[in-house]
C-alpha cells in the first residue's frame, strides 16, 4: 500500500542514479529502499571517505549527503568534489536545521539543504528537482503546460485564448510551478523559492496562495492543471497520470 502511494509521489520520467552518504544504518537503508521503490537507483556509502571515492568514480545524478559523517565531514566531501570540478548536485541532510547551518551548507557547495527529520516526499521532490537542474538549465522564455502558457519576458499568462491577470507574486508562483512542470513541488520549496523564507509557517499559508492561483488558472476549464499531491505538495501538469 505504502509502496503504491510512493510510486505516485515520483514524477520523474527518467530513472535517477543516486548516491546516499549516510552513516546511520537504519535511515540509510530506509532511504535506499524508498528510492528503489519509486524506481530510482540508489547506492549507499557509510562514511565520508567511501562516499567521496564513490562520488568521484560513479556517474550520479544527485548526491544525498549527511552533514556529520565518520572519517570525513559531509561539507568537506562536497568541498573536495567541487575542488575537482565535480558539479553533481548535492542535497545536504542535517540534524542541524537552523538558518545559519543551512547557509553554511550552501556556501560549502551544496545545492539544497534539508533538515532532519524530513518527510521522504519532501526529499524526493527536492532530489528530482535537483536532478533536472543537472540536465541543463531550462532557460526557455515561454513555459507551456497543456493550453496554459506563461511568457517570462512579457509577464503574460494565457490559458487557451483567455488572457489571465495575475498578481506579481502569483506570477512568480506559477512560474516556479511551470518551471518544474510534471514534478512535485512541496510547500517549503515554494516558500523558499517564491518568498525566500526558510521557516515553517504554522498555518496553511501556502495552500491559500495555491487555491487563489488555481481559481485563476483552472476555474471554468474542464481539465485542471494544478494538482494537489497528497502528503507531498503540488504539481502542475497536463492530465492525471
Amino acid at each position, binding site marked *: *500500500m505504502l509502496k503504491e502511494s510512493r510510486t505516485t509521489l515520483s514524477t520523474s520520467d527518467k530513472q535517477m542514479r543516486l548516491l546516499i552518504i549516510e552513516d546511520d544504518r537504519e535511515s540509510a537503508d530506509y532511504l535506499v529502499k524508498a528510492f528503489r521503490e519509486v524506481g530510482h537507483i540508489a547506492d549507499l556509502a557509510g562514511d565520508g571517505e567511501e562516499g567521496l571515492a564513490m562520488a568521484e568514480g560513479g556517474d550520479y545524478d544527485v548526491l544525498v549527503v549527511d552533514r556529520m559523517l565518520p572519517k570525513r565531514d559531509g561539507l568537506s566531501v562536497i568541498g573536495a568534489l567541487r575542488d575537482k570540478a565535480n558539479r553533481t548536485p548535492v542535497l545536504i541532510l542535517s540534524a542541524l536545521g*537552523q*538558518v545559519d547551518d543551512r547557509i553554511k551548507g550552501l556556501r560549502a557547495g551544496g545545492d539544497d539543504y534539508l533538515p532532519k527529520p524530513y518527510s521522504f516526499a519532501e526529499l524526493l521532490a527536492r532530489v528530482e528537482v535537483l536532478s533536472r537542474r543537472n540536465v541543463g538549465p531550462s532557460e526557455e522564455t515561454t513555459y507551456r503546460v497543456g493550453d496554459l502558457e506563461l511568457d517570462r519576458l512579457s509577464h503574460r499568462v494565457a490559458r487557451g485564448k483567455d488572457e489571465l491577470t495575475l498578481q506579481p507574486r502569483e506570477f512568480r508562483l506559477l512560474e516556479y510551478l511551470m518551471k518544474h512542470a510534471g514534478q512535485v513541488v512541496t510547500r517549503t520549496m515554494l516558500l523558499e523559492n517564491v518568498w525566500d523564507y526558510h521557516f515553517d509557517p504554522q498555518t496553511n499559508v501556502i495552500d491559500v496562495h495555491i487555491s487563489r492561483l488555481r481559481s485563476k488558472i483552472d476555474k471554468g476549464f474542464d481539465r485542471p492543471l494544478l494538482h494537489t499531491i497528497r502528503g507531498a505538495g503540488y504539481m502542475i501538469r497536463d492530465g492525471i497520470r
Partner: protein
Amino acid sequence: MTAFGKLVRTTAFRLTLFYLFLFALFAASLVGYFAWNTRRLITEQITTTVNAEVGEITDIYNRRGLRGLVFNIESRALRPGSNLYLVTTPTGVAIAGNVGSLAPGVISTIGWSETAYRRLEDQDRSDHRALVRVTELPDGIRLLIGRDLDERRRMFVIVAKAAQWSVLVVVVLGILGGIFVARRVLQRIDAMTGTTQRIMTGDLSGRLPVGRSGDELDRLAENLNAMLERIEALMKGLKEVSDNIAHDLKTPLTRLRNRAEDALAKSSCEADYRAALERTIEESDGLIRTFNALLMIARAESGQARGNMDDFDAADVASGIHELYEPLAEDDGMTLRLKTAPAPLHGNRELIGQALANLVENAIKYGKPAQAPQPGTVVSLDTRQILIEARREGDTVLLSVTDHGPGIPEADRKHAVERFVRLDSSRSQPGSGLGLSLASAVATLHGGELRLSDAHPGLVATLAIPFRNGASERLAAQTLDVPQKVA
C-alpha cells in the same frame, strides 16, 4: 595544604616578599653609600690636618733646627687626643714623638701609608691602626705624622650596626605586613570560594559577600554576583522550559501513541490504517515544528544566530510578510493592511521575517473582534483589520502588528511571551504557544525588545530593534555612504 602553606602561596604574600627584597636592597645600598662617603670624608679630614701639620713642622725645623723640632714635637705629643708624631734619624732611630712601635718598613717609605702602631704611653693596649705620612726633612731627618683610625673604625661599626638593624626591621615588618595582607585577602577569597562551592553543589541562590570598601575584590564580587543572578535566571528559565516541554510535548506524544495503539487494535480495513497513519504523520509534523521553534528560540536567546546578519530594509520584510499572509487573512474574514516607511536595519532577515510572521499569524488567529456586533450599531470595518507597520523612530526600527481583537490584559502581557503559554486556556486554536517567545527572542538577539500594548481595543505587538545595535555599528556607518535606494 596547611594554613601556613596556603598563606605563603598567596599572591599578596609573594608580592610582599618581592617588595621586601627590593626594600632591603635599597636600605642596604643607602647605608652602604652613607658609610663609604663618611669613610672618605674622615680620610680627607685626616690628610688635610696631617698635611697642614707637616707644613708647620717643616717650617719650624727650617727656622729652629732639630732642637726646636724636638721641642715642638714633644709639646704637641702631650696634647690630649693628639696625632701621632715620630722624628727619627736617617737610619731610623727615634729622636722624639709619642709612637712606641710601628710596623716594620713604614718609616723608610716616604708618603702615605696605613700601619699598625702602639703609643708610648699605653703599653698594655693592643695594636691600633693609623694613617701616617712620612716626610724627609733636610739633612735626612725623617718626620712621621699620623692619625689614629679608630674613629673611622668606630664610625664604620656604627654604620654597619645601623644597616643590620634597619634591614632586620624592614624584613620583620615586611613579613608581618605581608602575612597580614595575605591573610586578609585570603579570608575574603576563602569566603568567596566557600560560596562558589555551595553554588556549585546546586544552591544557585548563594551570593558572594560584598564589603563596603569598594575595592577590587568588592567589585569582583559584585560582578560575580551579577553573573550569578543571570545564571540563576537562565537556569530558572531552563527549568521552566523543560517542565513545559515535558508537559506540552508529552501530550501530543501520548495522543500519537494512543491513536497508533487504537488503530492496531481496532482497525479492520486498509482505509482505517491509512487514516491512522496519516494522522500520526500529521501529529509528528506538529511535534517537529514545535521542536524547531524551541531550538530556534534557544539559539536566538543564546546569541548563536549573530552570524548571518546583514543590512536590509525592514519595510521590505513587512511587505513580504503582508503579501504572504494577505490571502490567508482574507479567507479568515480579516483584512491585512500595510503601512511602511523606509527602515534600514542590520540583522538576520530570516529571523526578523519569521518573528513578524508569527505576530501576523497570532493576529489572524486571535485578533478577531471579541463579540459579534450588536444589532443596530454601526460596525466600522476597522475591527476586522490587521495593520502591519514598519517605520523608523529615532534610532529604533519598529515593526508592529495591530489587531482589534480582545487584546491581552496588561497583567498577562509579561506572561504571554513565555514559552508554551497560551492565554486562550481552552487551547481551541492550533498553535504551539511559541510564537511570541520566538518573536521576543529574536528582538532580544538584535538588542531590542518585543512590546505588547493596547490598541483600544486590541493588541499592538511591536518588534522594537535599535538601528545601531552593538555589533552593527561599523556596518551601519558603512551604509550611510551607500546611496539610498529610491523607493
